[in-house]
């Protein structure tokens, strides 16, 4: 799978981490740090029992938003190699909806990119979560109003990603 993808297949943190580490190791100072994030489907949301989820994406735009996020990350953290896969379709409890992996020479950048990317995905990726509840009923989750050019949102993601020391 390419480093940026929207897919119906189960996600693998291990594979994506290995891919970014291999690319990072081939350049410059080499790869000294790999960070990853996986978002998993929880059995409860805001007090309601969830049986499963469905994720829907506007796939071509989602991929372009991933590319934008990668450009933003490269601008701020040159040399970091990013992998980002989002799953769509039906997901069961405990399955990963998103995996992010970042490889860099040193740990600070790898941590910061991983966190930055999940914040930006939640802000601008055209992907929607549909929750199905135990005992019936379902709801679309409404998150952020997507605006890829909102500088304040981008700054919030950067602030969440960057350590205070």
């Amino acid at each position: 799978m390419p480093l940026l993808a929207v897919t119906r297949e189960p996600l693998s943190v291990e594979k994506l981490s290995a891919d970014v580490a291999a690319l990072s190791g081939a350049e410059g100072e080499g790869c000294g740090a790999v960070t990853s994030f996986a978002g998993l489907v929880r059995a409860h949301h805001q007090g309601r029992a969830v049986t499963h989820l469905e994720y829907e994406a506007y796939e071509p735009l989602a991929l372009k938003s991933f590319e934008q996020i990668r450009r933003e990350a490269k601008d701020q953290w040159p040399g970091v190699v990013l992998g980002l896969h989002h799953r769509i379709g039906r997901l069961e409890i405990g399955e990963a909806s998103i995996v992010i992996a970042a490889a860099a020479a040193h740990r600070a950048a790898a941590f910061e990119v991983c966190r930055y990317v999940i914040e930006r995905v939640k802000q601008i990726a055209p992907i929607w979560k549909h929750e199905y509840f135990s005992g019936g009923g379902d709801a679309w989750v409404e998150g952020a109003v997507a605006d890829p050019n909102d500088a304040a949102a981008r700054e919030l993601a950067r602030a969440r990603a960057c350590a205070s020391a």
Partner: protein
Amino acid sequence: MRVGVKLFAQLRDKAGAGDVAIEIGAGATVRQVWQALVAAHPELAPFETSVSCAVNATYARMHTHVNAGDEVAFLPPVSGG
């Protein structure tokens, strides 16, 4: 001219269709496409303040002009991750 409109998530559920064809005058903006869509599907009106838009799978603005055959997408607040 005719443009194709794509609707997602709640918007699609409310409208009852994910793909809608809209007839509109040449030189129309995305906002005018939205207004034509709401005229046909009044149940979409409450989304006006929270909807994002894209033209041909690229994020756009409500004042962006559209051309015949364009794919105009309206996106409710996103919740990926």
